[in-house]
């Protein structure tokens, strides 16, 4: 009986892993591939080394940070300011992992998470936040692992191909590659239903460009903190008053 139950357990988790990988095919993988191809071709135009560009997609696995690093290294900025700037753009990963990890089942929240967390990115986070509520906690880590690994594996070939295709890709196609990323995130916001997160998104959309014009390096942190806090307390208060 016990073995049978364990088999059922393994079976379910394996199915969740494949479901995650299957969900990655289609728009999420396309979006990531487009971003990586665009990044690779820009790197080629700037004369960045092909291996460093492609390995950046594997080991940093966060396009905004990679772009900041590339631009600052080309501009000849001091190493310490390059790292600090990248650290600031990566600060979103702190809160992204804080909100993802507690949704896994207790038994899965061990040291292995320090490996899986490298695969947390905007795409895998947005898709997990949307799909986790409909998955049993037991299936969430395998689902995430399947999805995020599939997407991560595309990053190296995507960047590498983009680097060498930069002269082959016609100019007008580059516009499509550049738009698909922001469009994907915009579309995932349209699917949100909770009042509080919707409010946070609206405030973030407004604050993002405004804070960027004021100070580019701290822009994300400031607009996230301000927008999120106002949305949280605002909606809490509104609900208390009208319920």
């Amino acid at each position, binding site marked *: 009986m016990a073995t049978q139950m364990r088999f059922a357990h393994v079976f379910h988790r394996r199915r969740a892993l494949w479901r995650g990988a299957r969900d990655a095919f289609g*728009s999420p993988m396309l979006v990531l591939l487009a971003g990586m191809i665009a990044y690779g071709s820009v790197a080629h135009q700037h004369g960045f080394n092909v291996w460093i560009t492609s390995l950046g997609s594997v080991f*940093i*696995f966060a396009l905004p940070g990679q772009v900041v690093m590339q631009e600052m290294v080309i501009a000849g900025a001091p190493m310490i300011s390059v790292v600090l700037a990248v650290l600031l753009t990566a600060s979103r*990963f702190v809160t992204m992992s804080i909100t993802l*990890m507690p949704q896994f089942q207790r038994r899965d929240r061990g040291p292995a*998470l320090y490996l899986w967390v490298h695969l947390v990115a905007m795409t895998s986070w947005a898709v997990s936040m949307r799909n986790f509520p409909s998955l049993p906690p037991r299936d969430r880590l395998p689902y995430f692992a399947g999805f995020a690994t599939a997407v991560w594996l595309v990053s190296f070939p995507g960047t590498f191909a983009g680097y060498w295709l930069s002269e082959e890709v016609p100019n007008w196609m580059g516009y499509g590659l550049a738009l698909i990323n922001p469009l994907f995130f915009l579309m995932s916001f349209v699917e949100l239903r909770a009042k509080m997160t919707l409010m946070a998104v609206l405030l973030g959309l407004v604050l993002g460009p405004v804070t960027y014009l004021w100070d580019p390096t701290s822009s994300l942190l400031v*607009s996230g903190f301000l927008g999120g806090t106002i949305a949280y307390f605002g909606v809490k208060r509104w609900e208390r008053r009208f319920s």
Partner: protein
Amino acid sequence: MSVTTSLLALVLCGLATYACRALGVLLSSRVSQSSAIFQWVSCVTYAMIAALTSRMIFLPSGVLANVPVWMRLVICGIAIVTMHFGRRNGMVLSLTVGVLLVCTYAYGFL
């Protein structure tokens, strides 16, 4: 710009990015999904991602800067409307429409 410099930058930036992810795991061990902290941190994260998205649309760093801002907004608007009509495949449909529109504009006018 030498290869050594960019390699050093890659290693250090990779470590910095991973440190942020790992810090999230470390802090998450004390957070439960039903707590107020969890809700607040989700709000902060959604606001951050929205800020990044809106920056990519309003203040793009690459080729999109050549497309006038009103055109970018019109294309995003059409994509959102498509999403509502597309039902199950709304995402794929609206991404296709948005990409085709911006490519057509670039092909014809730029």
